[in-house]
């Protein structure tokens, strides 16, 4: 169980991004116009389809269950299709049935049922030869036929072409195969290579998956000309850039600030004097002045006491012990009023032996019953957790032998001179708490907690050191530092006392992790911070807008296909962002004048990101 600064930054970033989910009302204004199906061709495209499902659900939450996801696999040479449910289940529902449900006008909400759009997703990473492309195209053809709606289908293959260093040769073979195909006999093929024209590699396909999602979004719209053009056969590729709120940098800033404040709140502890006050230490370790542990006293009260009767029955019971010098006078008096020590002497030591025997039986029963002993240890652990800090527990666990000596009280308790009716139960408590095996198990608990505390302290140190491994916040992002840092500092200043108390309770790595989760929960719920975190990136300041504009309007937007020749003008250009005409400060308002009138604006409903998607036609010979 490790924890480092980048983990925390990632957690923080995930939370920031969650603010951008549909629950926050940031769904797209545009809706899928026609019924649509996303088909995963082979297991290599699994991740892509998972991403597409997530992203399309975010974009069009109302259509979460109306967009069909189908998996296509090969059993030998025979294609097999199944529905991929949103919960990950796979059902054998026939493709025609799936298609029929898409056209179910009573239960779906598409604007038009004139067409069925099918997006095949194919990743070439596992290709054994370029012929695999033909095989999967044939599978796509079979799927189209299986819908039994072929005449209404418009289909597009999103080809995730792996051209990283390990797949260069296979990539070239696939390009050559494509170049020699008759593109008119194929669906439209959108080629997304993970090697960009600037030689950068999208190794984890993250950007290519975003492009695929953006392409699907803009291609299923009410403008029928655009849709028809989009699905026209041929090879296409895209240039793409995404400008988004600097989630990572904001998260890093917040986590750094959080760690800085929390480390200042860490108590500076001196543990060297713990043993200088043995009585105080014993008390903190749970040992009462009678040398017993309260939770074991409770056990005696509930479980063992039954072996010693109360009231008159106690006298009858005591009279069953053999008396050394029996006399009528002795039996006439109440034996329960005899001192425990005297009664023990009178009974050949049988009284002590009796108490020791019943305690031993109870102890053995508890020690041999995993639940019994774990219950004792849990109760003792709870007590230690309330009383000691991680530093103290680590220190104590290294001195268990000394603590053990501190626990053990060789003498009988003073109550031995008191009447049996008073002494007996106290004596049972004493015997159980002073039992060597019981003390050993309690010492084991101290060791266990001490070890957990040691790992926790090491993890904390490592966490602070791991901050050095984080990348510096880029210069262009630094303008938001004061925007976030000020309310953060205010939060930690106001909540210092609560945090200090919580920090004292951090005794293991699990509680350390929970502490950070809780602190993040509070940060996001804090009134002065919640809205700061949920603000759009344009709100951070005008400088941010300018940077975003330059990024989106750059002439060097990377093309996701490396080609030797220029592709000329794009067939279509899209700008995907939150289209908000009412707000003159919105990013849309600031950007629209910089883009040509031929640019289509697509309303994603999200003001945390803006994407530029330019679609280019690729001639087959350009692939060679």
């Amino acid at each position: 169980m490790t924890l480092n600064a980048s983990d925390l930054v990632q957690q923080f970033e995930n939370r920031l991004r969650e603010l951008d989910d549909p629950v926050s009302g940031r769904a797209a204004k545009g809706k899928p116009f026609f019924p649509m199906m996303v088909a995963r061709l082979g297991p290599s495209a699994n991740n892509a389809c998972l991403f597409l499902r997530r992203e399309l659900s975010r974009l069009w939450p109302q259509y979460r269950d109306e967009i069909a996801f189908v998996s296509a696999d090969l059993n030998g040479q025979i294609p097999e299709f199944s529905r991929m449910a949103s919960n990950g289940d796979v059902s054998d529902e026939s493709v025609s049935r799936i298609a029929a449900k898409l056209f179910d006008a009573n239960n779906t909400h598409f604007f038009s049922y004139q067409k069925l759009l099918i997006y095949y997703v194919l990743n070439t990473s596992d290709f054994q030869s370029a012929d695999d492309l033909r095989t999967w195209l044939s599978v796509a053809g079979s799927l189209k036929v299986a819908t039994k709606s072929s005449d209404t289908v418009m289909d597009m293959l999103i080809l995730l072409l792996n051209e990283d260093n390990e797949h260069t040769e296979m990539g070239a073979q696939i390009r050559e195969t494509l170049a020699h195909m008759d593109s008119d006999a194929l669906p439209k093929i959108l080629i997304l290579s993970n090697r960009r024209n600037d030689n950068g590699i999208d190794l984890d396909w993250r950007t290519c998956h975003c492009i695929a999602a953006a392409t699907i979004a803009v291609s299923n719209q009410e403008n029928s000309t655009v849709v028809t053009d989009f699905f026209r056969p041929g090879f296409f590729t895209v240039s793409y850039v995404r400008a988004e709120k600097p989630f990572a940098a904001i998260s890093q800033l917040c986590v750094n600030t959080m760690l800085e404040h929390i480390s200042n709140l860490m108590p500076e502890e001196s543990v060297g004097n713990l043993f200088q006050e043995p009585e105080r230490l014993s008390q903190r370790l749970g040992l009462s002045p009678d040398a017993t542990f309260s939770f074991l006293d409770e056990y005696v009260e509930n479980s063992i006491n039954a072996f010693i009767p109360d009231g008159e029955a106690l006298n009858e019971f005591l009279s069953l012990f053999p008396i050394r010098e029996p006399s009528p006078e002795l039996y006439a008096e109440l034996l329960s009023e005899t001192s425990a020590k005297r009664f023990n002497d009178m009974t050949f030591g049988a009284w002590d032996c009796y108490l020791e025997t019943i305690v031993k039986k109870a102890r053995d029963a508890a020690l041999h019953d995993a639940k019994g002993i774990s219950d004792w240890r849990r109760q003792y652990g709870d007590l230690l957790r309330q009383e000691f800090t991680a530093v103290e527990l680590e220190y104590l666990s290294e001195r268990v032998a000394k603590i053990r000596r501190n626990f053990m009280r060789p003498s009988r308790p003073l109550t031995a001179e008191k009447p049996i009716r008073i002494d007996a139960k106290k004596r049972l408590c004493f015997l159980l708490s002073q039992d060597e095996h019981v003390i050993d198990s309690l010492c084991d608990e101290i060791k266990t907690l001490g070890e957990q505390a040691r790992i926790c302290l090491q993890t904390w140190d490592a966490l602070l050191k791991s901050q050095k491994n984080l990348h510096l916040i880029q210069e262009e992002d630094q303008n938001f530092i004061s925007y976030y840092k000020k309310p953060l500092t205010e939060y930690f200043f106001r909540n210092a006392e609560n945090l200090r108390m919580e920090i004292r309770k951090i005794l293991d790595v699990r509680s350390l992790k929970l502490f950070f989760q809780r602190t993040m929960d509070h940060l996001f719920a804090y009134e002065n911070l919640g809205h700061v975190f949920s603000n759009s990136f344009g709100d951070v300041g005008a400088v941010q807008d300018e940077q975003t504009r330059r990024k989106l309007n750059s002439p060097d937007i990377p093309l996701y296909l490396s080609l030797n020749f220029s592709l000329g003008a794009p067939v279509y250009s899209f700008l995907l962002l939150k289209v908000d005409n009412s707000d003159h400060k919105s990013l849309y308002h600031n950007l629209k004048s910089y883009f040509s009138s031929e640019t289509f604006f697509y309303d994603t409903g999200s003001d945390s990101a803006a994407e530029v998607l330019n679609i280019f036609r690729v001639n087959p010979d350009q692939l060679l």
Partner: protein
Amino acid sequence: MKYLYRIGEPAYYATNLTWDSSRGSLEWRSGRGQDVLIVQTAFGVNPIAEMDAICKEMEGIDLRFSAFYPLRPKLSVRFVNAKQGATGCPGNGEACTYTIFPCVANEETDECVIYAPAQEQRVSSPVCHVPLRVALEVSQDMWIQKFLWHTREIPSGFYCIRFITPCGENYQDGFLEYKIGDYLIPITRKMFESHAIYIHTDIKPVVIPRTNAVTLIEPPRKPPATRSKRGF
């Protein structure tokens, strides 16, 4: 002397450890001229898993001419060299377990190698559990009531437990208990030492061993009826 525990070798063996209750002695079978180490533990406790620790504790102690040496509570050891008696030695009481190990002492190197016993077999075992055999008698205590012309015995209100055999060295308080109703009262060494105890009850106590370390046996002969002075 330094003691080393090693895996058993067929050339060195000592087994078939038995207890002669009439003489209170141990007997075994071993190779010719084979020295042995006998480890006495609490009844039913097997020392084999602890032999490395036991060897360390024995270090520096010359056990060759001593009787059983108390190494720690409830664990004693005795070295018997081949010349001392080869196939037997006096025991150290009952209510315990004895285990025998073949060993080879080397005077020159001041080392004694103790070999693990061969796998325990049903017929021939290096382990001998010796329960304490206790004979006792439980009887109702009577006292004599005198009338003008005759006497009669009437219950005194006590039961007597008379201990006929001694408890030996290894008896621990509570090994035996007597049961009256739902209560189990422990029998202590001091009770054995007093030869008889009197219990104020009309119900006959039933004596029960709490452990296998003690076995109740029939008294050797029927003792005369109790005539107590303790009744009142």
